[in-house]
């Protein structure tokens, strides 16, 4: 007797990645030899407490449990289930988690390797996670020849009104990071975009093996085996980054003091209009904690640290959404303007819930920028959301809590999926 598992709509190994939000799966008897009636099987972790851990449920609206019993028809018809990572137990490497399908007798019918893939605090990555991430990022940049140049071009002065200064700041950057992360995963599927907790010291991140140390003139130095030493943007080699704080021992701070802490950021308010003020402090203050590329929105994406900084901004939004239960796009507490550009009280185009976002929508008509680098948002084999030309609204229910089809297939290690 044997079983097959389909995950995220595919039997391919490339789709075997889950986060905290439930992923759809199916199990079926692919070889019913020996069975005379429907077979009761149990789904469970292949190696309890080793590697990434999974929970299972028969519906996305039910809490996940360590095991799940299912009855498989003898004719091979698939039986649906859902699986997710057990909060607090993510993978450290590809395929270190596994679904074991066992008979009541204990006989194992199949084992399916997968990964509980979530975004993590960069300062806590293992060396292996760090090296894979650094290698993927360097490859995406490819000495200035890679697709990274498109991400650099999406965030220049003349495009900033698409991404900054209005309510769409958070959703736009969520799409931006997701697009980048999917490109990285196209290079190495085990990679996620880590975040830099700028309100805490990050001694591991600011080392020559990882994102580099800064010399007295603000040039970032890397270990001789670190491929980020070949980083190139705008025809220029290397990275200018001059922390105005001790990056190994302090949280980010500028002349005004340390960046707003995580708790203080979450305490900004219960509604989106108050929370989005975080674009100033901690977001902008984290930027002005440095001299060099990061200090200026026009040049900031030239430093790969920019994306880790923004992953933390996005994590804070995700955390706020979880704490304040802000996933429902029909209420103004979740997002300020629920309509589209042109309506009364609407924000600038691109910043209203129903507006599509530049550059993924390819819109270059006034008042959008004249070019739209990068094309549509990168697709994922793990999720069909968002659409290739996402709206602001598609960025909000990122875990698919209100609508399972809206799941964007990323999670943060410290922001759970809660029913």
């Amino acid at each position, binding site marked *: 007797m044997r079983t097959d598992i389909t995950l995220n709509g595919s039997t391919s190994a490339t789709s075997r990645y889950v986060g905290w939000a439930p992923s759809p799966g199916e199990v079926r008897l692919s070889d019913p030899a020996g069975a005379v009636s429907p077979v009761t099987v149990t789904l469970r972790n292949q190696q309890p407490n080793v590697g990434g851990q999974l929970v299972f449920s028969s519906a996305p609206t039910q809490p996940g449990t360590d095991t799940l019993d299912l009855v498989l028809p003898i004719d091979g018809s698939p039986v649906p289930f859902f699986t997710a990572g057990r909060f607090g137990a993510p993978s450290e490497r590809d395929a270190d988690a596994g679904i074991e399908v066992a008979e009541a007798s204990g006989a194992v019918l199949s084992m399916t390797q997968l990964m509980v893939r979530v975004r993590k605090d960069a300062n806590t990555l293992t060396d292996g996670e760090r090296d894979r991430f650094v290698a993927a990022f360097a490859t995406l940049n490819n000495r200035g*020849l890679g697709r990274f*140049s498109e991400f650099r071009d999406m965030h220049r*002065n*003349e495009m900033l009104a698409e991404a900054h200064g209005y309510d769409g700041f958070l959703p736009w950057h969520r799409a931006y990071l997701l697009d980048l992360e999917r490109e990285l995963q196209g290079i190495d599927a085990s990679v996620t975009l880590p975040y830099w907790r700028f309100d805490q010291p990050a001694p591991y991140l600011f080392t020559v093996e990882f994102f580099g140390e800064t010399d007295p003139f603000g040039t970032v130095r890397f270990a001789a085996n670190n491929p980020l030493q070949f980083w190139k943007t*705008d025809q220029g080699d290397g990275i200018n980054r001059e922390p105005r704080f001790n990056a190994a021992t302090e949280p980010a701070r500028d002349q005004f003091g340390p960046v707003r802490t995580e708790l203080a950021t979450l305490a900004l308010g219960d509604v989106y209009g108050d929370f989005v003020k975080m674009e100033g402090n901690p977001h902008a203050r984290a930027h002005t904690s440095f001299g060099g590329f990061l200090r200026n929105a026009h040049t900031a994406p030239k430093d790969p640290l920019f994306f880790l900084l923004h992953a933390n901004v996005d994590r804070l939004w995700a955390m706020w959404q979880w704490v304040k239960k802000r996933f429902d796009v029909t209420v103004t507490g979740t997002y300020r303007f629920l309509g589209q550009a042109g309506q009364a009280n609407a924000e600038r185009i691109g910043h209203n819930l129903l507006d599509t976002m530049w550059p993924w929508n390819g819109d270059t008509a006034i008042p959008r920028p004249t*070019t739209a*680098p990068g094309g549509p948002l990168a697709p994922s084999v793990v999720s069909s959301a968002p659409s290739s030309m996402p709206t602001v609204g598609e960025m909000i229910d990122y875990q698919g809590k209100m609508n399972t089809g809206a799941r964007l297939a990323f999670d943060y290690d410290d922001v759970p999926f809660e029913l």
Partner: protein
Amino acid sequence: MTSPHFSSATPEEAIAAWVRAGSRSEQFRAALLALLPEQVLLYAGRSTNETTRIRGHILATFERIGLPTGVLPYVIEELESGRDAYLVAAAAKAIRGGHVSDCKYLVPFLNKAIRNMQYLDSPVSFETYKALRWPVAQSTTALREIQRTLAWLNIDEEKDTVVDCCDTSSPVLRTVPVSGSIATVELEDQDGKRLRFSDFFVGRPSIVVFFYSRCDNPNKCSLTIAGLARLQEALDSGNLKDRVALAAITYDPLYDGPARLRSFGEHRGVRFGESVRFFRSTSGLDTLRAHFDLGANFIGSIVNRHRIELFILDARGAIVGSFNRLHWDRDTVLQQVEVLVQQNSVREPAIRGVAVSVLSGVVPGLIALLPKCPLCLGAYMAALGVGGLQLMPSWPWLLPALTLIMFVQLFFVFQRSKRSGRRLPLAVSICGSAAVLAGSVFLTLPVVASSGVALIVFGSLVNSIPRNNPLPPQAPAR
């Protein structure tokens, strides 16, 4: 005043002083206009910043000395694509050297410039050349100059609708056969494959654009290559895949190696294939520049300034159309290429093929554009100018083409003059056409011929000035 012989060694301050000292005269306007093409020796070997300063200073001066029609393509180019505050401010100032009624058509371009400069504006000074300390006594900005020009035009940006006045593509009649040294210019493509110019550009019609990967104005090279990708899509969906070759050639062959060519194209949606390739010249860059009369100049091997350039080549590799300086329209390019493909498929005799391709491909484009916008017409005719007529001795078939254009033009002027009841434009246009024919056909007198062109343009402009409604009712265009 005649233009002094400025060379690449002339100090920019000396040029600036000469420009400042010039008076409001026809000769001085012509002399300044002659300094605007990128190719002129004056810009060779100068830095980008220096080139920008000189050009901005010249452009701004037209506000004081009057704006000749021939400057309009340069003004529109800056408004449409410019991102340097000094040049855009200068272009906005230059408009105020014209007549209000002639310039209303520039409003859409001024609005484009507002979009371009909204987050890129900078303080500039036209009183202090090359400021050594800041602040200076008098400074302005691009957006301020644009607003001044809109106010001068009596346009309220908030209230008036943004309407594109016309197609901005600018086909230029020039045909140069592939022969001699250009045929053997050696090219290397995005995969490192080497071939001769004629290997790729002879055998089927082609479209070729020029670019360089480190161009920092996305409104130029980046947009050109993204536009090429859209052309490719349209050709593919129109069953013209592989029947029309697409090429992009870099101005910067030392820097743009194969990997960079590929990367620049792929990131803008180009799908490479046998008929879709990017090239750098491994020998004969000067020949290429001369053959296409490229609107670019260099400091060492690096571009200091360039215009947008697209060329259409027939199956023999002869240039039968070009679109330069202003953004080209995909459909107009396609229309011309489709005609060439049809001709190529029936294998016309060589010379006749060129003639027919020009008449059928370019002339309809021109004719299509003629009635829409007098300023475009002025710009195109100026670009055509004496340069185009000088080609005529070796291309006698161009005569009927030009004559046809002029008669079509006269026809439209006549029709409009009937509607408006004004006779002056028609009279001026008839005189202009006569002067062109007299100066370039019956006698070889370029001055007479160019005066004829000017008269035609003038007639066209006067003819199109609306009496009440400043903007022709046309659909907004993207």
